[in-house]
């Protein structure tokens, strides 16, 4: 009984314990379940609020996120996150994922060293400034989220724009500074490696140290690819950069292009190298002045090819800029560095590319420098300056003329003739390549502009024939279609230079009048208004122009006045002067007129050239051969640019032939060759050359060729009025007889002659054959009167004059006196008086005397008593001093005439205020003629 009771109690107790274990278990479950639900909600709320990545990188949440009971929540949040980016990371078939598109973009716009992850270091490129220019430069790898650990399918390259596109602002912490500097070093090395050495120039300024920053790049300083600036002189760097920006805007972007990039897109050439300047700060603000200047550089730099990389320089930038912000990694390993960038936004973390091995960087820089050295010492060829032939003559000269003449750091160096630099002055002693430079400039411009856009007037005072190739010759019949006038061997014919200036001044006046009629002031506006008109820019090149100012005489005075006028006003009317000289310093007239010299803003100095640059600028003294200092700042030192010149020997002719093929039908240029003597038949109007023309109006005696741009014939009209005789004065029998021959030829071509209408009186033996040759050439109507017959023939002639005076008979009769003073030997007083009578009364009776006297005194004697100097209306002085001619021509007139062979001083009382110099024509079959 007791045993059974005890059994029941034991059983009951077990049952009770089981029951309370179940109650305790259920209560605990109830509590735990509520707590878990609460915790899950709490954790999910945190994750939703802060983001899974942020929560993961929060050390305080590490324990919570590691709780296995909360993994469902975390997995749910992660799944939502992955689903959200599914379309970007792994879109449906047929579409590229975001990372793939970024890979493709970087590959396309960041080719080679710009965007390759590896394998680019150590290669030296040959890509020039013309491109292709990378628009993206790799700096690291990106991953979705903030952890920086890319999932296999979401990693992509992070790249930033730089050249022409954007500046770069990098901020780092103390811990991440080294990584940030490594990114800058890699970026610079990518830029330098991508292009041919010299296309990009680097500048580094570090507030903290002279040489410590970016040490791997230091080999680049050897050839100037990298300039390291003094830590105490940020202003110096900023001034250099702002000078550069100013220079680009005033010299290169003068055609209305907004930037060098736009200019390069149009021309296919990079006009200026890029500059990347790195400023390494210390997270403290710069001084106010530096900040202001830096802002200016940032604002204006990109258009001028200047990009800045700022590291730890706190600044708000008012210009296109991309930012990179470095921070230490939150998770292990602690040395890792991460960054966010403006390119990739807040949801991408960039892991910067690892620093490049120091030795590899140094080797790569040495390779670049060696190639740069090789390129710098290489002679750039003229062909490198030519655009592709399909682009020849396609540029417009509306804003100016721009053409490269050489190379700076392997890039074409362009000069401009336009508003900013209207005229150029070139100096260089003999043998320094002045002609080579001029030919380069002419050819380089000619291939860029059509003859409708550009016209050349080319004048060479020295005895060389460098410009002769631009005119058709005997063995090369092509010419430069742009050339309107080519003057060679001008030598002492300064009057021709004067004529050129006068022609340009006339053209300037014509343009000014046209502009005035259309109510505009400048050529650009005139061309816009008068679309049908041809208003090419004119470039007048005068080599050895100092000869024009060689004497203190009227020519120099007039030339100076014209030059001043052209220099001042030519700019507005598209007329540009390019004056070249061996020695600019000797031109008194020129340097005495600062108003002239100031207009020659573009100066080019060849080795050892003096005074062509500003007074204290002696940059030309150390120049090697084939180099020039090009200075578009009136010769002030800061405008110096040393340009390597190509050798154009033989190449200009080829260019000309190709241009001639295009425009060969255009009018050929006028050639003035000072060493060539024109023949009479060339000077006669076309109809009279064969002697068949019979013009109306008074006969005109051709006395020579005028020194004008058109090379017109100088004539003396011989109407039947007093004084219409011609006197040739000088001992030079050759020139005198050529003039008489020309006069006779022209008069005989003018009208039919009857017997005795032309009397040739060779009064010295030397003149007899000349007279006989003339008589034989023109045939009937010519009578030769020798010295012993002269007195008698003169008597009948005087009687004829008297008869005609009363009869009104005016049929022309010409008396040619060869050495008229020789008649003194055979003429008594009456005979002399008869000659005076013929001179004084003959012209109005149609009897004109064309005489050569060997001495002005003897002629003056003849023109005394019953005759006077005005009985001879037109004079031609040969080898006679101006002071002796003065009293004959116009008493009181001071004549500065220096006799020279083949030239005559011509004065026609009825037309001239001042005498002019003529070229004495050749005999029709003159052996001295080179025609």
């Amino acid at each position, binding site marked *: 009984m007791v045993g059974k*009771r*005890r059994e*029941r*109690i034991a059983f*009951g*107790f077990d*049952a*009770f*314990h089981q*029951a*309370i*274990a*179940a*109650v*305790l*278990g*259920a*209560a*605990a*479950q*109830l*509590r735990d*379940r*509520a*707590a878990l*639900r*609460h915790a899950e*909600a*709490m954790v*999910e*709320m945190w994750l*939703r*609020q802060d983001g899974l990545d942020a929560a993961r990188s929060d050390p305080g949440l590490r324990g919570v996120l590691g709780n296995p009971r909360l993994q469902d929540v975390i997995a749910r*949040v992660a799944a*939502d*996150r992955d689903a*959200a*980016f599914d379309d*970007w990371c792994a879109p449906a078939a047929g579409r590229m994922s*975001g990372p793939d*598109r*970024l890979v493709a*973009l970087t590959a*396309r*716009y*960041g080719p080679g060293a710009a965007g390759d992850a590896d394998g680019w270091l150590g290669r030296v490129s040959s890509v020039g400034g013309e491109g292709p220019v990378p*628009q*993206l430069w790799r700096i690291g790898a990106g991953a*979705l989220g903030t952890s920086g650990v890319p999932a296999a399918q979401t990693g992509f390259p992070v*790249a930033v*724009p730089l050249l022409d*596109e*954007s500046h770069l602002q990098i901020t780092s912490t103390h811990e991440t500074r080294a990584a940030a500097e490594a990114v800058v070093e890699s970026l610079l090395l990518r830029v330098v490696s991508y292009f041919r050495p010299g296309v990009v120039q680097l500048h580094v300024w570090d507030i903290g140290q002279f040489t410590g920053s970016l040490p791997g790049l230091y080999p680049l300083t050897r050839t100037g690819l990298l300039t390291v600036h003094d830590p105490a002189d940020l202003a110096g760097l900023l001034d250099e950069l702002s000078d550069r920006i100013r220079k680009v805007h005033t010299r290169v972007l003068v055609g209305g292009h907004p930037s060098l990039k736009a200019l390069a897109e149009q021309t296919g050439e990079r006009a200026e190298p890029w500059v990347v300047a790195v400023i390494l700060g210390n997270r403290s603000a710069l001084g106010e002045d530096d900040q202001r200047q830096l802002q200016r550089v940032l604002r204006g730099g990109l258009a001028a090819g200047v990009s800045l990389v700022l590291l730890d320089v706190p600044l708000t930038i008012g210009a296109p800029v*991309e930012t990179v912000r470095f921070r230490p990694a939150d998770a292990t390993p602690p040395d890792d560095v991460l960054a966010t960038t403006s*390119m*990739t*936004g*807040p*949801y*991408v973390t960039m892991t910067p590319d690892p620093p490049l091995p120091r030795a590899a960087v140094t080797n790569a820089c040495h390779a670049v420098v060696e190639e740069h050295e090789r390129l710098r010492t290489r002679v750039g060829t003229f062909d490198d300056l030519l655009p592709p032939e399909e682009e020849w003559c396609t540029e417009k000269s509306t804003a100016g003329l721009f053409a490269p003449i050489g190379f700076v750091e392997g890039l074409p160096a362009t000069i401009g003739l336009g508003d900013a630099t209207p005229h150029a002055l070139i100096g260089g002693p003999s043998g320094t390549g002045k002609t080579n430079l001029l030919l380069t400039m002419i050819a380089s411009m000619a291939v860029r502009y059509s003859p409708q856009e550009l016209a050349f007037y080319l004048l060479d005072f020295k005895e060389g024939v460098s410009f002769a190739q631009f005119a058709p010759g005997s063995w090369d019949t092509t010419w430069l279609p742009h050339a309107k006038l080519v003057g060679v061997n001008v030598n002492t014919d300064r009057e021709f230079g004067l004529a050129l200036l006068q022609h340009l001044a006339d053209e300037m006046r014509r343009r000014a009048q046209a502009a005035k009629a259309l109510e505009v002031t400048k050529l650009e506006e005139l061309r816009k208004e008068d679309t049908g008109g041809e208003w090419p820019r004119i470039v007048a090149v005068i080599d050895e122009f100092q000869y024009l100012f060689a004497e203190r005489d009227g020519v120099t005075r007039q030339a100076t006045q014209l030059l001043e006028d052209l220099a001042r006003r030519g700019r507005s009317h598209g007329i540009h002067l390019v004056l070249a000289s061996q020695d600019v310093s000797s031109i008194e007239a020129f340097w005495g007129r600062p108003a002239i010299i100031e207009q020659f803003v573009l100066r080019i100095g060849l080795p050892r050239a003096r005074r062509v640059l500003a007074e204290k600028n002696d940059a030309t003294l150390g120049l090697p051969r084939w180099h020039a200092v090009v200075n578009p700042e009136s010769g002030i030192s800061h405008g110096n640019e040393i340009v390597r010149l190509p050798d154009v020997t033989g190449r200009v002719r080829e260019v000309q032939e190709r241009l001639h093929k295009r425009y060969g039908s255009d009018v050929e240029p006028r050639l003035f060759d000072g060493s060539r003597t024109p023949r009479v038949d060339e000077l006669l109007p076309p109809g009279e050359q064969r002697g068949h023309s019979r013009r109306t109006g008074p006969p005109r005696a051709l006395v020579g060729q005028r020194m004008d741009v058109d090379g017109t014939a100088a004539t003396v009209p011989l109407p039947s009025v007093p004084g219409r005789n011609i006197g040739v004065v000088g001992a030079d029998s050759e020139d005198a007889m050529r003039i008489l021959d020309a006069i006779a030829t022209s008069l005989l071509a003018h009208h039919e002659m009857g017997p005795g209408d032309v009397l040739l009186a060779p009064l010295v033996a030397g003149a007899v054959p000349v007279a006989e040759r003339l008589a034989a050439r023109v045939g009937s109507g010519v009578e030769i009167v020798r010295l012993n017959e002269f007195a008698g023939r003169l008597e009948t002639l005087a009687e004829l004059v008297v008869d005609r005076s009363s009869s009104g008979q005016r049929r022309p009769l010409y008396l040619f006196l060869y050495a008229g003073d020789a008649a003194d030997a055979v003429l008594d007083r009456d005979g002399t008086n008869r000659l005076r009578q013929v001179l004084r009364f003959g012209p109005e009776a149609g009897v004109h005397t064309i005489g050569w006297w060997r001495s002005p005194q003897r002629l003056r004697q003849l023109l005394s008593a019953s005759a006077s100097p005005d009985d001879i209306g037109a004079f031609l002085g040969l080898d006679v001093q101006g002071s002796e001619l003065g009293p004959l021509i116009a008493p009181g007139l001071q004549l500065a005439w220096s006799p020279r062979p083949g030239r005559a001083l011509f004065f026609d009382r009825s037309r001239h205020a001042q005498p002019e110099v003529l070229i004495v024509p050749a005999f029709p079959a003159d052996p001295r003629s080179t025609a």
Partner: protein
Amino acid sequence: MNAARAYKDVIGELVAAADALRERDRARAKQLKRQLVDLEAVLVQALERAALSRLGVELQRDAVLEALADESWMALPPRPQPAADADPDRLPDLEAAANHAAEQLQEVARRRFTLGRR
């Protein structure tokens, strides 16, 4: 098209997706915040309920032990561990069952004295 612009456009799609996710997360967080108020009440209630159950069990056990005080032959086992497989939703039933078991045990313990008096 400018390459940097194109690059940023691609990133822009990512940013848009991220922004949309953030917007959804924000809404969900707001919802959770509201839920948390209820869950907190539920939690407090559950804690109280569990504490009450534990107290009830303790009182019952004390009563049972008192009823078995004279059973010197009996070795008392320690308090049982909560049953891991107990269904919290059946807590009232389980409490009732425990109560019933306690009553039955007490009843068995009381019967000895009745037999002695006979």
